[in-house]
């Protein structure tokens, strides 16, 4: 029974990793950029809910959609201001990567300047324990799992059934050819950033609901773990990112329960190293041949 509880707790935590990992994965799939500023979008999401709900006293049903919009706009702004020129001019990967790190530092430090470095408290939904027989779970865990599943289904539909989704797939497969077929790849990239950032905002809301505290550097470790989840699942793959997130969450929870609370992060990152040694493309990654 204990084991089941630990697995479910792990899935709850993994759901947040999964939602954030989706953003890493989508952006990587389209422009082969590891957007290290993605973790900080979670922080932006957290602070926008804080600003609207706690500082201005508006209800959650206004704060949550608003934070989704703020993050989506922020994602698009980052793409346009920081990455766009580099992408258009086919700049070296390393320049993109360093720009991403720069954006991440910029965001963290500006929020530290605006809100101070002290953590801020916030609670979104009232959370009561739920007793299922001998299982005691909390509401936020169940909420995390269900929201993440709904989000993944929605995203799959978006990518496979809509026109913009198909354009995303085409751009991901061959941006040059997609352009020749009349797809405005610039808009597709912008859209991908918007969707990825909005998903990060959903992750932020769930995160703040489960762990009611926000601080300017909260995106660091969370972003890193989500990135690990994306790589574990196969970067560029949507179900892979979800699977990677869940696997990581459960691995963390079980390590804490049965091995060591101190070694949790060490073990989580060892899983990544092992995975990269055994199957470098990740659990669900496609083995793409480099085109010459």
């Amino acid at each position, binding site marked *: 029974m204990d084991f089941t509880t*630990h697995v479910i*707790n792990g899935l709850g935590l993994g759901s947040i990793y999964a939602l954030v990992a989706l953003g890493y994965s989508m952006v990587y799939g389209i422009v082969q950029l590891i957007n290290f500023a993605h973790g900080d979008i979670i922080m932006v999401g957290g602070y926008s809910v804080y600003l609207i709900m706690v500082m201005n006293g508006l209800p959650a049903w206004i704060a949550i959609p608003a934070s989704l919009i703020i993050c989506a706009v922020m994602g698009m702004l980052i793409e346009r201001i920081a990455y766009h020129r580099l992408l258009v001019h086919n700049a070296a990967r390393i320049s993109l990567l360093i720009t991403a790190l720069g954006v991440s530092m910029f965001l963290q430090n500006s929020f530290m300047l605006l809100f101070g470095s002290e953590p801020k408290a916030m609670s979104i939904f009232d959370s009561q324990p739920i*007793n299922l027989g001998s299982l005691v779970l909390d509401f936020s865990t169940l909420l995390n799992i269900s929201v993440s599943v709904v989000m993944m289904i929605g995203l799959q539909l978006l990518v496979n059934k809509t026109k913009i989704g198909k354009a995303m797939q085409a751009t991901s497969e061959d941006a040059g050819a997609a352009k020749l077929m009349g797809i405005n790849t610039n808009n597709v990239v912008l859209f991908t950033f918007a969707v990825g950032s909005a998903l990060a905002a959903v992750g932020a809301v769930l995160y703040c609901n489960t762990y009611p505290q926000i601080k300017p550097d909260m995106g660091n470790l969370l972003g890193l773990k989500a990135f690990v989840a994306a790589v574990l699942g196969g970067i560029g793959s949507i179900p892979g990112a979800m699977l990677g997130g869940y696997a990581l969450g459960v691995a963390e929870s079980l390590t804490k329960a049965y091995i060591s609370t101190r070694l949790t992060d060490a073990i989580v990152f060892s899983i990544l190293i092992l995975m990269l040694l055994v199957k470098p493309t990740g659990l669900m990654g496609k083995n793409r041949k480099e085109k010459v």
Partner: protein
Amino acid sequence: MKKMRIVSLLMVAVMLTGAFAGCKSKKSDTIKIGGLAPLTGGVAQYGQAVDNAVKIAIEEINAKGGVLGKQIEYKSVDEKGDPTEAVNAYYSLAEEGIVALIGDVTSKPSKSVAEKAAEDNMPMITPSGSEESITASGTNVFRTCFIDPYQGKLMATYANKELGAKSAAILFDTGDPYSTGIADAFEDTAKALGMTVTNNEGYASGSTDFKTQLTKIQKSKPDVLLLPVYYSDVALIAAQAKQLGITAKLLGGDGWAGVLNQIDENNIDVLANAYFCNQFDPTSTDQEMQDFLKKYRERYDAEPIMFSVLGYDTAYILAAAIEKAGSTDADKIIAELNKTDYDGLTGKTVFNEKRNPVRQAYITTFDGKKEKVLQSYSVD
């Protein structure tokens, strides 16, 4: 060795310049007291709190005529929370001829400085370095705050005797000596009092998810749960404990002070059943305390914290010892510090044979969005 020779040459040079300077202006009109505090860096808020309060105290003492008929000249140096910087700053203060030292503020630099100060037999009081071995460095090293294990012992005794707890669980930060110090002493005392310790769970510094550990604790339904950690972690753990339906009374140490700012109003009931030991009573109606708090707020536009109160008392304790010693001789000051019996903002302080304070703690609980002191409490 060569280094030593250069250092001693430099010292001679400094002393000579000092002596010549002395010829021109009468510098010995003041009594110099040195201060070490992190005024910038990650723990700057603690350093500033101590330094600000010491300045207020010294000013008050000077306004009343100073000590030994002379004014006190207090000079504090920013050591940025770094042990190496702290030791260097200590040497430069010692060269300037300080007769005693207030500081350092956090445990690690305090320990490093204490070892050097012991070599010089420099009277030293740390207002807030709580790590147990600091005062063991030498018979010249004192402290005004509680040591970590004392708080563990105190809370275990309080839980057993006053709250009637029979079983206890512990959740602590394995990477923080403050946390492990309280946790270990709590466990030992609880067992000695015949309580069962159902869980002793740790977590890595910087964790935000405590559900796994709390799930285990929830299963064993202890009467009390000790969280010997700082306020921002307390806020996270208390919220998750409530989410998992843990009904145990929560206990903590002085690191809890300020936790209310970290908890959202809608979540305030997570602390409905919590107790921690504070080193002072901020709600006290005592006139001296009220005057100090008012002065501090007006002057620095900041809320005084426990570190401020400890810093203020430390300055008075030191000044009293120098006055009674009748001279600035180190041995005489140390002898008087050992005989300290001072009634200050934190209560009545005497030092034990390990030069740690023997004083009451203030058991504090929460009444809505306010801290409420229940009683003062102490153990041997």
